[in-house]
């Protein structure tokens, strides 16, 4: 059995998109739809993704992508490539492939070959959010670990979070109790808002979200460091990928919040002032309900926003029984050279995820 490695840049043909859907789609169900793969890899406003495929004959048995994303450090924009959709069929995980540098383990060759290619083809930085084991392989390829202990407040939504705590019975019991308390708090908050004729909310769709995205695009994602840019192109693309959710106070288009999509959600923007606590509660409760509906397992709030007396987020979080918890966040980063902007400190938020 001999695997062949191929590396290049998109756009991917339908057969390759189907190959990713058939393989990596089993790991992340979103990728099971070729249309989603096409949106991510072929219709990215910052260019086609870079891809490495491992094939056994004509069959795709392994894949890895680097997705170009626009990053920003102060006023400087540059491309950071996000590692994504790494897959190698179990039958081939001990296999080697031939590379110009000699035989190499197939999984390592997928990653290293593509990282080298993307850095030579315009990516100033690469970033990856992955397991400690894959991260170790990336460290062996010259990645450094950007670590951040993030002060956050959380609401737990799903038993999936409990499974992440498996083996620690006391923590599972505590988490289960917290989930029950937070669920009851949401029910009580909705009842309170309904009884008092609470503030209504709107959920803008693609036809009327421009004012919200434009306001968000004017915010600096990373004072003193670098992060994913909030250009309109980026925001529109993330909206098409259902990676941004917006909830606004009805009749007050300046008062709204933005949260990322996916299983682990985080407030990225909040502009409901402390003078409108009911509006804040309605917006946060709606964001949490929408996250629960989409089977997210957690919603997080940056404590800097929670603690800011100018905003209503702190009071809304208290009513909904959010609990403080520091989170260790690790991002694996490799810069093309030491003088690119990506060598500055990375300021993490959930826009780093696709």
């Amino acid at each position: 059995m001999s695997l062949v490695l191929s590396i290049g840049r998109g756009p991917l043909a339908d057969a390759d998109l189907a190959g990713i859907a058939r393989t990596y789609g089993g790991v992340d169900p979103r990728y099971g739809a070729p249309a989603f793969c096409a949106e991510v890899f072929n219709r990215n406003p910052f260019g086609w993704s870079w891809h490495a495929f491992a094939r056994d004959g004509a069959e795709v048995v392994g894949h890895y992508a680097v997705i170009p994303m626009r990053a920003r450090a102060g006023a400087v924009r540059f491309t950071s490539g996000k590692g994504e959709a790494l897959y190698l069929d179990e039958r081939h995980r001990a296999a080697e492939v031939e590379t110009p540098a000699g035989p190499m383990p197939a999984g390592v060759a997928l990653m290293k070959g593509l990282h080298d290619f993307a850095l030579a083809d315009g990516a100033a930085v690469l970033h990856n959010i992955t397991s400690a084991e894959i991260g170790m392989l990336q460290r062996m390829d010259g990645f450094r670990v950007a670590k951040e202990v993030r002060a956050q407040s959380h609401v737990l939504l799903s038993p999936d979070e409990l499974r992440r705590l498996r083996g620690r019975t006391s923590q599972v019991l505590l988490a289960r109790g917290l989930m029950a308390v937070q669920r009851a708090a949401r029910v009580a908050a909705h009842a309170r808002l309904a009884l008092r004729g609470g503030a209504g909310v709107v959920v803008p769709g693609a036809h009327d979200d421009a004012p919200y995205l434009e306001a968000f695009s004017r915010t600096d994602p990373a004072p003193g460091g670098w992060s994913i840019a909030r250009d309109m192109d980026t925001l529109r693309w993330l909206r098409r990928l259902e990676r941004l959710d917006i909830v606004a106070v009805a009749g007050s288009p300046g008062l709204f919040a933005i949260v990322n999509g996916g299983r682990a959600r985080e407030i990225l923007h909040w502009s409901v002032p402390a003078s409108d606590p009911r509006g804040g509660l309605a917006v946060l409760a709606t964001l949490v309900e929408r996250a629960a509906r989409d089977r997210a397992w957690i919603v997080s709030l940056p404590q800097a926003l929670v603690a800011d007396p100018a905003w209503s987020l702190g009071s809304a979080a208290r009513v909904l029984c959010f609990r403080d918890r520091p989170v260790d966040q690790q991002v694996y980063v490799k810069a093309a050279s030491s003088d690119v902007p990506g060598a500055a400190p990375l300021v993490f938020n959930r826009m780093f995820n696709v």
Partner: protein
Amino acid sequence: MSAVDRTAVRRMMEELLKRQGKSLPSGDAALLRDVGFRSLDFAELALRVEMQTGNALQFETGVLRSIQTVGDVLDFMERVTA
């Protein structure tokens, strides 16, 4: 950095392989691909060594290419934790 001796590393390798229903030959000359010790196993081994020493391992790029046998793994871990 506190060193991890070869016996301890070998024991960790045995544990990793045993979990997958595989066994580690007694000699150092066996090829990793014949043993079924994959790159992800090497990564997990390195993480365990880091946990034991309490220090982050430093790697030269391309390290995996030079590691072909069980003895190469033991030599490498001995070297980077020395």
